[in-house]
């Protein structure tokens, strides 16, 4: 009954299959997401009340399964989630793809059916924004096309903003260089049953050609495609496709919804809004390259466009019930002024990291999050917010001096005005429980965030007093940090005394972070891999750091958080439907 009710409602609301296909078919080229609208105007001529599934006509196909890149889901909301797949069927275009979503992996309780089309304009990728009947629930989904069924995917809707949530667990990942190592981290995360979502903070692909930035031994076994640096739309598509042939990454996508933002290597090294360090004139106009990279990103990543006609905007927010708000930022592309290497320009009041629009949006989101009474305010973003210096000094804003000798102006250190605006706002709001999650730097860090960490009167390194937020940095999936553990330890021994707000760091290991959130505390557990030079499932718990609610500074934990009770089952390996057909 429930299912029929839901289907009837959905179709009345303009998401019946017929309506969907009509709507979808009316679209013009490029990326398309089938979006269910609530006002009954899905476009085209939907047949209200049609509850049955009018199967679209399938073209003839005698080849192998078209689901070569498996499935993915992402950008979960309380009643919506993006479902993704791609059709590999040479010679065909405009291929209908059906998706079904069920409460159980046996598909005995289907709650949603939808149709999308794999088109050449979108590199044959298909995204469907499925409307689902319940918040905070695990769902199983499967695509069907050309007489084949895809692998079964598993995803989860978030809790409504006003719902009480006791326990949230997120994997936080970044920096996956295909030719620098095996994606063991993705495999380890795939099998964690109790995750609500995976946050990916950028550098999902790398733009380099062979021999430019990889481990030669790994690269010999994992050759790059295309076999050169990527510049054009076709190049970027092929690089995403290459990553998506990786079984570990496929498995991770299959089991968990991803919430992704890009960093620089989805474009080119050290990108800013109008250029990149690793872009030269011989590679053409940067705006063309940027457009190509953005298009391929939207085609291949399970991301929902915030503004359908302005895909360059990826900053957006999510709510995990009353427990947490998540704001995903773009510190890389949309508003970033060009990097500097001068501490003077770094303080230029006219330079921005976020751009005015995004900063306004962020401040509104923080206000909204505080007003709605969310316990935690999570910021998912790319580059380190807290300063990294060779010796922290008190900051004297009116002299445009101080802070200490900063070393990496690609991070917030190079955009002092933007950092002061954000931290100044957090301070003015009296906002407790802001947690910043960061990628980009291929290493693990746990830090207090203070307006003036080098000033003894403003920040006490022993008690954490004066800290107004905390920052956790996730290591790379495979991109390299320090070449040996010895160098990493040496750097740590120097940097921690020099930077009073930095409590812990590891430059050596690859891995990932599990962020475990309860009303009482928010803890990051770092899991480090034994190796990425070969396939391996060996990992160890490196360290945990948490902030207790209201503390706004971190403390160490020698034990990782306990997993959730009663986590739902993983999506099964066996593709029962496909086997039945065989």
């Amino acid at each position, binding site marked *: 009954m429930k299912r029929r009710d839901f289907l009837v409602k959905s179709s009345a609301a303009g998401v019946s299959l017929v309506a969907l296909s009509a709507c979808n078919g009316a679209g013009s080229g490029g990326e398309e997401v089938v979006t269910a609208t609530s006002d009954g105007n899905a476009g085209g001529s939907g047949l209200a009340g049609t509850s049955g599934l009018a199967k679209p006509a399938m073209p003839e196909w005698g080849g192998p399964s078209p689901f070569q890149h498996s499935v993915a889901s992402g950008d979960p909301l309380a009643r919506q989630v993006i479902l993704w797949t791609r059709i590999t069927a040479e010679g065909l275009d405009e291929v209908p793809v059906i998706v079904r979503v069920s409460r159980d992996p046996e598909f005995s309780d289907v709650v949603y059916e939808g149709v999308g089309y794999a088109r050449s304009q979108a590199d044959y990728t298909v995204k469907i924004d499925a409307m689902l009947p319940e918040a905070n629930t695990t769902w199983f989904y499967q695509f069907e096309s050309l007489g084949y069924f895809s692998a079964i995917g598993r995803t989860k809707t978030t809790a409504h903003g006003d719902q009480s949530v006791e326990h949230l667990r997120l994997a936080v990942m970044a920096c996956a260089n295909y030719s620098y190592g095996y994606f063991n981290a993705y495999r380890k995360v795939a099998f964690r049953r109790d995750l609500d979502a995976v946050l990916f903070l950028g550098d999902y692909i790398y733009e380099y050609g062979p021999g430019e930035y990889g481990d030669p031994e790994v690269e010999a076994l994992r050759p790059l495609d295309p076999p050169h640096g990527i510049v054009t739309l076709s190049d970027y598509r092929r690089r995403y496709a290459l990553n998506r042939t990786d079984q570990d990454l496929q498995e991770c996508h299959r089991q968990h919804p991803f919430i992704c933002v890009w960093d620089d290597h989805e474009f080119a090294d050290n990108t800013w809004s109008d250029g990149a360090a690793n872009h030269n004139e011989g590679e053409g106009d940067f705006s063309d390259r940027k457009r190509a990279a953005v298009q391929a990103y939207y085609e291949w990543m399970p991301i929902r466009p915030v503004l359908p006609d302005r895909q360059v905007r990826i900053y957006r927010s999510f709510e995990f019930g009353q427990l947490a708000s998540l704001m995903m930022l773009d510190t890389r592309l949309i508003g970033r002024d060009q990097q500097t290497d001068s501490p003077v320009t770094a303080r230029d*009041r006219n330079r921005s990291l976020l751009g*005015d629009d995004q900063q*306004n949006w962020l*401040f509104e989101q923080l*206000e909204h999050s505080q007003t709605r009474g969310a316990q935690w305010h999570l910021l998912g973003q790319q580059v380190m917010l807290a300063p990294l210096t060779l010796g922290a000094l008190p*900051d004297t*804003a*009116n*002299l445009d001096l101080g802070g200490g000798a900063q070393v990496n102006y690609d991070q917030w250190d190079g955009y002092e*005005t933007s950092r*002061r*605006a954000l931290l*100044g*706002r957090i*301070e*003015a*709001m*009296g906002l407790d429980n802001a947690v910043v999650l960061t990628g980009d730097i291929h290493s693990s860090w746990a830090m207090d965030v203070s307006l003036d960490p080098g000033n003894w009167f403003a920040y006490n390194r022993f008690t954490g007093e004066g800290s107004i937020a905390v920052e956790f940095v996730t290591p790379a999936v495979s991109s390299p940090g320090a070449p040996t553990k010895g160098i990493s330890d040496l750097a740590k021994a120097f940097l921690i005394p020099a930077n009073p707000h930095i409590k812990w760091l590891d430059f050596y290991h690859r891995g990932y972070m599990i962020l475990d959130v309860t009303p009482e505390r928010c803890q990051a557990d770092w899991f480090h891999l034994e190796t990425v030079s070969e396939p391996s499932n060996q990992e160890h718990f490196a360290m945990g750091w948490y902030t207790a609610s209201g503390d706004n500074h971190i403390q160490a934990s020698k034990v990782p958080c306990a997993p959730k009770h009663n986590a739902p089952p993983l999506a099964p390996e066996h593709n029962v439907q496909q086997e039945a057909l065989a």
Partner: protein
Amino acid sequence: MSNDRRAFLRQLLIGGASVSALAACGGQGGSEGGEDLPDDPPKVNPEPDEPPVESGGVKGTESMSFIAIGDMGTGNIGQYHVAEAMRQIIEAQGCDFVLGAGDNIYEDGVTSVDDNGFLDSFEYPYQNLDVPFYMCLGNHDCASTIFGGGSDNQRGDYQVDYHYSDKRYSTKWRMPARFYKESFGKLAQEKPFLDLFVVDSNPLTSFYIDFDERFNWKNYGYPQQLWMKEAVNESEAHWKIAMSHVPYLSNGKHGNAGNLDEGMRVIFSNPDADGQRYKLFLEEAFSHKIDMLVTGHDHSLQWIKPVESMGPAHIIVSGAGGKSDKFQDPERNPTHYQAENELGFVWVHLTEERMLLEFYLVNEDTGEFRLGYSREETKPVQEVAAPTPA
């Protein structure tokens, strides 16, 4: 101070600004105090509310005029000369009220509600003017030294107290709260003709840190920002005008918010002295919502053209009511008009569709005055038609 002097002054002032005369022409609306948090009830003005301007409610306000002055409270001859010029313009062209954009009482404000400063810098200079003055606090009103460092915000409270004092010398002084909203006139469906939003900018930008925690950003700046944002969003007035002391944009020595006092800042202690947070405050509260922003602080007259970050609002610096100064960079912001090194004020006339601004320049020594510039514009913010229910 002797009671004799007070009595004498009161006698003296009765001719110019008697209470009954004021009641007939004074502020035409209720004030909404903003010193307390938004949830608190607004401070009630103990005086009886004056009757609205229009009679019978048949016809609403067709136009209003006001004068904007700032940085006027010197008590010197220049202030008197400006006041006399204002009197003549008011007589000739009319004026419903005056906006006082701060630095009301030089050099370091007042230290009690009985302070002579109210006499010397306000009542006496403006004794011949018969209109209410809506006042805003400046850095000198909240300073403990003649330098105007703004580190004694608590002093501003006396200027609010004076609004409520029954011992004041006239009822012209209006400052119902440190920051507030005031409505003027009436249009159809009881909508005000004009809402005025007054910002207390000193705690947000003072040169020196005020160690009184009641006035830090967390306890004062951000709550004020939220209050202001809500007040503007809820306003149904046809015209919306904001007033603050510290400029959003200025070609004078204090400069633009976000980079205030660029050359001077090295000797300041407050990291907010550059006005970065203040700039965002103004943009978040007012951008694309108000028609005009009136500030003082720089002792000159400037009509700065609208800028994208503030939307269509025209930006007026009127800080030459008692002191004059030269520009630091006349090209910093494009202007319709600007005048340095002379005292003066701005007279504004609003109809439903148009606004007329006249800039008057006053010779500090002789008191001679002349019209420096006049320009008419259509109303900057166009009303968006309310969506019709489907």
